[in-house]
């Protein structure tokens, strides 16, 4: 899983470099905004009592990358974490109805 | 503290079947704890069962044996009501002994 994720990430960054040589690399400000969004979404997930362990792990990966000065990677991880948190919120919301489908009657 | 050794020996006339359960962490020295620090090795090295002054079963163990190990074996002889002595020595030099009556 990790391998796939990293290869996807590196693929993404290769595409970024190849496709947009003129675009600037992600800055610390971009990272901070992305991280704040991820953390806000994860907080919201906590509110619906359905956080995923992978969200926190991906947020940590973003922080680690930022500490190492790799803001491209940090932004990508933060974005992924935000997507994971949003998916967990979606799951919690949809399951409010769907759980009944599984019930033994 | 209660003994770390549970033992049950039953004689069928000709042979005696012995079962024992020993409470011990049996840390191999290769496992890390939650903080990522290595748990130092600590395991039973010698396990001995004696009957009538003779060793009927001896084991030289290492770190590969599970936590709270269980042993089952049988030996020829052994009379109901006689004593069976069990003892172990671990890698830190700790030891425990117990004596059980053969049933």
């Amino acid at each position: 899983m990790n391998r796939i994720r990293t290869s996807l990430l590196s693929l993404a960054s290769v595409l970024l470099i190849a496709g947009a040589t003129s675009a600037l690399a992600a800055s610390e400000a971009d990272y901070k905004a992305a991280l704040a969004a991820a953390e806000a979404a994860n907080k919201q997930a906590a509110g619906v009592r359905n956080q995923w362990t992978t969200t926190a792990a991906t947020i940590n990966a973003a922080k680690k990358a930022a500490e190492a000065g790799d803001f491209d990677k940090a932004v990508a991880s933060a974005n992924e974490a935000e997507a994971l948190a949003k998916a967990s919120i979606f799951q919690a919301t949809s399951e409010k109805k769907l759980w009944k489908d599984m019930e033994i009657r | 503290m209660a003994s770390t050794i549970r033992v049950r020996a039953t004689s069928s006339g000709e042979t005696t079947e012995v079962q024992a359960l020993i409470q011990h962490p049996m840390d191999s020295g290769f496992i890390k704890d939650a903080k990522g620090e290595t748990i130092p090795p600590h395991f039973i090295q010698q396990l001995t069962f004696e009957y009538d002054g003779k060793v009927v079963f001896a084991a030289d163990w290492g770190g590969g044996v599970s936590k709270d190990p269980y042993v089952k074996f049988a030996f020829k002889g052994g009379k109901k009501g006689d004593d069976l002595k069990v003892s172990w020595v671990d890698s830190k030099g700790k030891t425990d002994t117990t004596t059980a009556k053969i049933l």
Partner: protein
Amino acid sequence: MRPAIRFASIGLALAALAYAAAPSATAADAVDPVADAKAFKKYFTDKFPKVKLEDFVNGPYSMDEGLHQQWQEKEQFPPYEFSLELGKEMFSKPFKNGKSYGDCFPNKGIGIRQNYPYFDEKEGKVITLELALNRCREANGEPPFSYVKDEMAALTAYMAFTSRGKPFDIKIPNDPRALAAYENGKEYFYTRRGQLNFSCATCHVQSPGERIRAEVLAPALGILNAMPIYRSEWSGMGTTSRRFTSCNSQIRGVPFSPQDDEYRNVEYYLSFVSNGLPISGPGARP
């Protein structure tokens, strides 16, 4: 990491199956615990016609013959014995103030496991045995124990042992809050969570007897009757709280704190639908 991928794809496949198979019933939304319990038992006895009802409490051992044999040998010298003995010792030893656990419970705490969890109408919440034990400690000026293992497991092991064979007897008092707690517990049980999108029911209703990696999944019916358990995988004892929290993290969900409302309610639900099945704890599981 590769097994995790397979795990996830199994989850997806199961999810697909579930959606295909489940009737899209939305009618009959009135809460009827007695009917639920009946349907719950019928589901399992229909699925495993050869397993006797009271044998479901033996979890995977009731599903797999080889495992059953191993278990019978193991039961002669069960791995929970040390914990059980510790529990017995702790239970009879008085606190600093001279009182003991027995003073906190009906019948001095002996043979009462089958009545927990119960709904406390004063508090309006479900009280589990583990919670009652820690409250007993705190009321007597002792610090609470961790809910997941060690001392707590030892105490509940002893209490379960003194109740072996007694059928689960969980009551839902005539109180709308009790019914709500039951219904919330049920919702929790069937709600998918975690990145792997599993609910409790995904494994323990749809797939008991199947393997998940090397383990044989236990049926949800009677699953709590065997608590606490010595799990070889943990190489130690674990309580009901430990089972719930570790299940949550295995499906990549962040577990709640032990004895949060969700866990108390799901324990209430699961125990109620297993009413009539005997307490078999403490148990040993691979």
